[in-house]
């Protein structure tokens, strides 16, 4: 039970789109999963997901603990490859190509699809080197200084750190560290940024900074965020997918219940389980 997301049944405030919402027909699909099942050993963690993720939108994935939302997210840039027991069935089409297809290099997948993790994980290097490391590895060494500055500016951190770029990233607060990680991810100019509960370890002020950033960043990137904070999903996301845990005899696995535009998910969900979750009746 995610009791921490249930601060009473407060009315959920829904973000007013800052620009005219793109009509459904104009959307460009970035990801399309078809019958995606990810298992650890023999037990499926998330099962049979069909979901399309659209360009320059923020897509939120919400649901109770254990519903496989992080597993789903990590399957979008093949981070699950690092778990030896993980197996993937079905397809994840990225601009039409299956990222689990033959000849696809996971390293290439990840350089296009970046990720920010639940706990800030800066490298034990200086702030500058944290952002510059990926650039150096990927050979984007021209204009390194301005690329680092641009990434830190986009992550709304430049003004706070410009005088101490050579200091260790560990000297920063948790919220600043997470923005270093975000700057690091966007410095290498990915197409998509996946965010796995990026604010769950942060205080409310740091959280709201990250959320503000997402509104800015979606103009350039496609963002997918996993969160178990429904208010956060309502504030930042254009599209919201609700996952839940389907109990079976052998335990249970995550399934996609409903996927729609965020206001619809929060005000007129078509599935009873979604309604129960967003109104706080279960979680």
């Amino acid at each position: 039970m995610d009791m921490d997301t249930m601060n009473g049944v407060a009315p959920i405030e829904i973000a007013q789109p800052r620009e005219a919402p793109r009509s459904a027909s104009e959307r460009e699909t970035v990801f399309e999963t078809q019958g995606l099942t990810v298992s650890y050993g023999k037990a499926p963690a998330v099962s049979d997901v069909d979901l399309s993720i659209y360009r320059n939108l923020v897509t939120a994935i919400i649901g109770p603990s254990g519903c496989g939302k992080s597993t789903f997210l990590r399957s979008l840039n093949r981070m699950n490859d690092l778990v030896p027991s993980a197996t993937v069935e079905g397809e994840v089409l990225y601009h039409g190509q299956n990222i689990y297809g033959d000849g696809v290099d996971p390293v290439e997948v990840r350089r296009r699809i970046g990720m920010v993790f639940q706990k800030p994980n800066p490298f034990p290097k200086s702030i500058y080197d944290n952002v510059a490391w990926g650039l150096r590895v990927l050979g984007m060494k021209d204009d390194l200084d301005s690329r680092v500055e641009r990434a830190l500016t986009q992550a709304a951190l430049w003004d706070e750190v410009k005088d101490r770029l050579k200091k260790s990233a560990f000297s920063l607060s948790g919220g600043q560290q997470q923005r270093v990680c975000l700057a690091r991810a966007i410095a290498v100019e990915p197409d998509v940024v996946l965010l796995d509960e990026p604010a769950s370890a942060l205080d409310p002020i740091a959280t709201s900074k990250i959320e503000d950033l997402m509104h800015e960043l979606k103009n350039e990137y496609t963002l997918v965020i996993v969160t178990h904070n429904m208010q956060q999903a309502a504030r930042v996301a254009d599209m919201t997918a609700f996952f839940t845990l389907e109990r079976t005899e052998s335990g249970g696995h995550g399934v996609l219940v409903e996927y729609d535009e965020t206001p619809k998910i929060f005000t007129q969900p078509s599935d009873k389980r979604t309604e129960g979750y967003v109104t706080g009746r279960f979680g």
Partner: protein
Amino acid sequence: MAVDSGRYALTLSRRTRRRKLVNLLMQSLATIAALAAVAVLALVIGSVAQRGASALSWDFFTKTAATFGQGGGGVANALVGSFVIVGLGTAMAVPVGILIALYVSEFAPPGVGDLARLVLDVLNGLPSIIIGIFVYGLLVIGSGQAAWKGSFALAIIMLPLVARATQEVLALVPGTLREGALALGASRWRTVLGVVLPTSVGGILTGTVLAVARAAGETAPLLFTTSIAANAVTWDPRQPVLSIPYDIFVLSESADPADHARAWALGFVLISFVLVTSLTSRLLLVRYRKRLEG
């Protein structure tokens, strides 16, 4: 107010008095055993220092052994010899040891990694004389002794120490750092080189220093590989050279009592080197672990 010893008596009965005595006895025995360990170390260092101190002099460090009966002379060739043998052995063992550790902790499938760890522990337990005779059979028979052959034997002894120490610090590097690097589109090797190794460099250094301290005192492998040496300072690893532990043995067998004092003094030099390196490396490791975990 005098209280009759009823069921609420707080003084000791006979049975509880016996229990208390047994407790005291066992506690004392354990304490004495622990103190004995410290005492043995203090006695060894003390007696070596006491007997060797008189022979320590400028000549001792700068001259080679004098001709019998002439007096004076020193152990410069053994000091330089040990430096050459151990230095070269370290140069052989450290890169390979680090690579082994990287394989075990970063690349090996889980089962293979455990097996590799077991093999390293067994190798670490091999008696050094066995390693000596192995290298003797492999390299010395037919072509004679040389300092580098001693280095090779020492490298086999150092290898599991370096590899295990490195592998243990690599295990301390949080998995989230690796994920962060891989999520940027870095390959496994670039992740290891750019993030994992720099994070663990402190631990690797301490492991190396401990291995050096251990190798500096090894005698048996050198007996087979680099013991019949000219009485001259040489830096050439292709020549057999004298080493500190082997020279201690030679000097203590000498008929000249002054050589016995030199053996003690050389022992004092070796023990000081080992003590200082082990202690500093352990201190460094403690500090390093705190930094990584905290």
